[in-house]
């Protein structure tokens, strides 16, 4: 087992939300205690619906936001805001929307060289340019693209540029926040292939944030399923997808449409919607939508339990031959 590049314990992020002029501010628990570790060359996928805290997690790992509580270590060193500037070199992020994440006034060459200009000011300009051109080639773009502007590229090509920029400083960890959600199907597969190739070649660790379970099933090694800021299930991909333990994971799997018309399955219908993260119910956060809820679920918060595959449920689904598989 390789040493973990990133290790998180009890990671939390709370936001103060003002309730208006005279009301007391309330606390929004975007991420309410998360443990995980990520090794080189592996992909950890975080899945969940909107508002479950997966993007907040990405921002904490990418050192854009400071955790409210908990520890995050990178290569064994604790991540503290005073060291951020230094540590950010080894953790880079790729965002969902390649239209919003590239400066429209910068040429591609300048976009790729900027990380070096900032972090390696001693590097000669020639060397910076050489590296940028190398990177362009690595992500499958042509040399003449170096002097073009972002608007001249399609969505898939822009995402390649965003990935190239993230790789300029030789990071160890790449945080991918919904990297293919904004792309068409035919482009999506090319970007996923590029990510796979880069990971093999550079031994990158990926924190892959996505809501698309079919993509996650393809790329992930380990999966964390989040619901309202908590991990409800965590484990190796095969185990989570073939024998989900938490009812929410099962419901999520069964709700994901499959591209096999014959495989019309019994869909588990979740009634209701996600509760607002501002007033998470007492007890298990999933209790109001769960079909096997009991009194105990409404009173106590279940902890993540289990050896390899962990789930936070008092009455986990256990049968390996679950219909949602």
């Amino acid at each position, binding site marked *: 087992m390789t040493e973990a590049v990133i290790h998180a314990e009890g990671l939390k992020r709370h936001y103060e939300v003002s309730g208006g002029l005279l009301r007391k501010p309330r606390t929004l628990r975007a991420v309410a205690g998360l443990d995980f570790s990520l090794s080189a060359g592996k992909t950890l996928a975080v899945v969940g*619906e909107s508002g479950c805290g997966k993007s907040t997690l990405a921002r904490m790992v990418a050192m854009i936001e400071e955790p409210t509580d908990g520890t995050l270590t990178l290569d064994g060193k604790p991540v503290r805001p005073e060291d951020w500037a230094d540590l950010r070199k080894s953790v880079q992020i790729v965002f969902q929307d390649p239209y919003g994440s590239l400066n429209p006034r910068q040429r591609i060459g300048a976009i790729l060289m900027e990380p070096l200009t900032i972090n390696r000011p001693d590097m000669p300009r020639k060397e910076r340019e050489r590296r940028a051109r190398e990177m362009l080639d690595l992500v499958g773009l042509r040399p003449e693209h170096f002097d073009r502007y972002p608007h001249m590229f399609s969505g898939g090509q822009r995402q390649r540029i965003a990935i190239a920029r993230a790789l300029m400083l030789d990071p160890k960890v790449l945080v991918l926040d919904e990297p293919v959600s904004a792309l068409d199907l*035919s*482009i*999506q597969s090319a970007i996923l292939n590029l990510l*796979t*190739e880069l990971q093999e070649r550079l031994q990158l660790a990926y924190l892959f944030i996505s809501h698309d*379970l079919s993509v996650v099933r393809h790329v992930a090694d380990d999966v964390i399923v989040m619901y309202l800021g908590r991990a409800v299930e965590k484990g190796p991909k095969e185990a989570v997808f073939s024998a989900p333990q938490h009812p929410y994971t099962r419901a999520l799997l069964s709700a994901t*449409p499959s591209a096999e*018309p014959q495989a019309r399955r019994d869909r588990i219908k*979740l009634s209701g919607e996600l509760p607002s993260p501002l007033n998470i119910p007492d007890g298990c956060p999933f209790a109001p939508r769960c079909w096997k809820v009991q009194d105990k679920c409404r009173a106590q918060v279940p902890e993540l339990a289990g050896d390899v595959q962990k789930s936070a449920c008092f009455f986990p689904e256990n049968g390996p031959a679950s219909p949602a598989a």
Partner: protein
Amino acid sequence: MSLLRIRNLSVSFATASGAFKAVDGVDQDVNAGEILSIVGESGSGKSVSMLALMGLLPWTATVTADEMTFDGVDLLNISKSARRKIVGNDLAMIFQEPMSALNPCFTVGWQIKEALRIHLGLDRKARHRRAVELFEQVGIPDPERRLSAFPHQMSGGMNQRVMIAMAISCQPKLLIADEPTTALDVTIQAQILDLLADLRNETGMGLVLITHDMGVVAETAERVSVQYAGQKIEEQPVDDLFNSPHHPYTAALLDALPERATDKLLPTIPGVVPGQFDRPRGCLFSPRCKYANDHCRAVPPIPAGPELGFVRCHYPLNTDERNVS
């Protein structure tokens, strides 16, 4: 006779750099009570053809067709006021972003009652009764109270239900749903798709589902029409389309699905959808097609007969002479 009959529909937009053909010679039939799905990537003209039918395109668009009849009414040579009577009444549409389709300044109750007042001319009491009834029908809990809520006070899934309630308020014969679940989470998406299918079963209306998600198509549609770069390239019943696609583009698109992957690297489609200036002379897919030859690049194919799914290809796949596994 089919409910909707479109023959040789073309839409071109006047742009600063010349005319751009967004829809090119599309034929389409929709029968009462069936679910037809139109799939394609962005820019394939799937939304534009339906907007042309609704008469919702801006003045820069030129719509031409040999025939466009809905329920026996010729929509090509119809006065604006006569069209207004049909659109929103017998022919209704719901859009991708429920948040931006609803007016943020009025309560959802006011907005749904407006439709009832204009199209059905009900009095105040009857409008209220019908609005409550419709909200119940689309599964909005506590309808009386929800009628006085503003769109921003409700979730995306609830707003989409309001849109559906409005669209079915006049018991349309045909409902066009343009990416109705793209902005929603998967568990909510499952609820909305089930709702649309249930409404179809209850009312016997025709349903056109525009989407780019093959999973949604496989689970919901009965007949599928595939569009590429403004042309309809293939149309088949859903099972046949997924089992034996005739057009190389459809086959490549299905292969690119992560859930059909057999290998860590996914099959991809090289290149991008042709734009305004690089439309090929022959088959529009020829620059990206792995089977293309000189004939494909020179001569545009014409649609085949119904036995081959109207495929627009010189060398269709999965036919008796040409079996490609």
